[in-house]
């Protein structure tokens, strides 16, 4: 099957979703009123758009995630061959993880993992 | 020690979670704990408390007679004007005029089921009935006339 199957799956997803949405669109006619298009906020009219700038507290985690993610990426090929390569690979990865763990400890110490 | 604290932390946390899961697991596996009463299917066996205040009714006996004298005590007792009594004057066989109710209007849509009218009625003409299946499509259906058409007051009730 190979890569073609991915395309088939994509087509399936689109067909499924679009089919459902279209059926609804064609068969259901809703009433319209000015409130309907407004954003829901517990029944109170919204006055500020959330697209106004907004302090996300999470970026530090995203930063750290990115670093660890890359580390994870390097460990996949390593994991596949580790049994073949043996001890060398183990030492390699211990050094690798150790270095990163230093960073982790640093982050911990600096309080970067404490969410404020 | 730091590491020990860490491990104890993890252990205690997991233990407390497992405890909760055991409880829910217990209920999952014991279907006799299910307490659901299936309302529309158990209508035949459903037994409401005798005192349950579902609505005000006016009992009529087999001669289509009730005991309401039209004294309007209930109307006065009602805190929110649910009852409206329209009286008329019947001519008794002896030719005397006698006060009687023309219509006992009861607006179920407003009734708070507080029992004050029943308590106030001197001749026990109205009682609380445990009916609850009142849902309707139209609000005006909820305004009821409690005295049945053609009914009259029981003999000997003043």
């Amino acid at each position, binding site marked *: 099957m190979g*890569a073609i199957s*991915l395309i088939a799956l994509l087509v399936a997803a689109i067909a499924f979703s679009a089919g459902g949405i279209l059926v609804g669109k064609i068969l259901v006619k809703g009433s319209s009123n000015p409130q309907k298009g407004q954003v829901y906020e517990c029944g109170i009219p919204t006055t500020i758009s959330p697209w106004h*700038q907004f*302090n996300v507290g999470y*970026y530090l985690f995203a930063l750290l995630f990115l670093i660890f993610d890359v580390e994870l*990426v390097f460990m996949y090929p*390593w994991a596949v061959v580790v049994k073949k390569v043996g001890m*060398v690979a183990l030492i390699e990865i211990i050094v690798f993880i150790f270095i990163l763990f230093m960073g982790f400890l*640093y982050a911990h110490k600096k309080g970067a993992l404490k969410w*404020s | 020690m730091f590491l020990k604290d860490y491990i104890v932390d993890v252990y205690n946390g997991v233990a407390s979670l497992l405890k909760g899961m055991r409880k829910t697991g217990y209920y999952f596996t014991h279907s006799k704990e299910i307490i659901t009463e299936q309302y529309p299917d158990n209508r035949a066996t459903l037994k409401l408390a005798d005192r349950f205040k579902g609505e005000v009714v006016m009992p009529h006996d087999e001669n289509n007679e009730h005991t309401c004298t039209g004294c309007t005590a209930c109307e006065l007792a009602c805190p929110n004007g649910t009852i409206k009594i329209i009286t008329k004057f019947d001519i008794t066989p002896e030719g005397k005029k006698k006060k009687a109710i023309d219509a006992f209007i009861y607006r179920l849509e407003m009734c708070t089921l507080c029992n004050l009218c029943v308590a106030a009625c001197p001749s026990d003409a109205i009682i609380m009935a445990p009916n609850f299946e009142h849902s309707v499509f139209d609000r005006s259906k909820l305004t009821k006339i409690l005295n049945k058409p053609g009914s009259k007051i029981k003999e000997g009730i003043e």
Partner: protein
Amino acid sequence: MNISSILFYAISALILGAGILAVTSVKIFRAAIWLLFSLIGIAALYFWMQVEFIAAIQIVVYVGGIVVLIIFSIFLTQQSGKEMNSPALSKKIFSALAALFGTAFVHNLIVHYDGFKYVSANPFNPNVAAIGTQMLSTTSHGFILPFEVVSMLLLAAMVGCIVIAMRPTNGNATDTNNETVSNTNTLINKD
């Protein structure tokens, strides 16, 4: 034209189209989304070239990591719904011309270069085991040293991020909670 080449053109169209939108869209969030599609397209191109490992890495790192990070920082620093003011027309034209000129130049180079003929007898076999073996080998094409250096790089990046991005002061932000009623006493004393 067979399916494979149709796919190639479709993927290329996705990459380039999304790329163009990513650099021209006036809404910054949309730009990020278009960048994302472009990156996904590139991943698809890798897939098409049968280097699945790199394709997966592309998605994991770029889409799962970098774009999410970019989106977060957009929220932090922008009014994400506001349209960015577009650059002056002259600048646009100039940049476009420069880009076109560069493209044409390189295009020309590629078209007229014919050193691409060499094809090895060995099949291209980029499976993960091969990658892993080469990565951990210490022979001439082994990448063991870069592999270790990468960890240093990541460590440096992490430390750098923390140093740069952490708030310099954390002291005053924490405890405004406790301004309790005790000030009432002082108020009364004033009276």
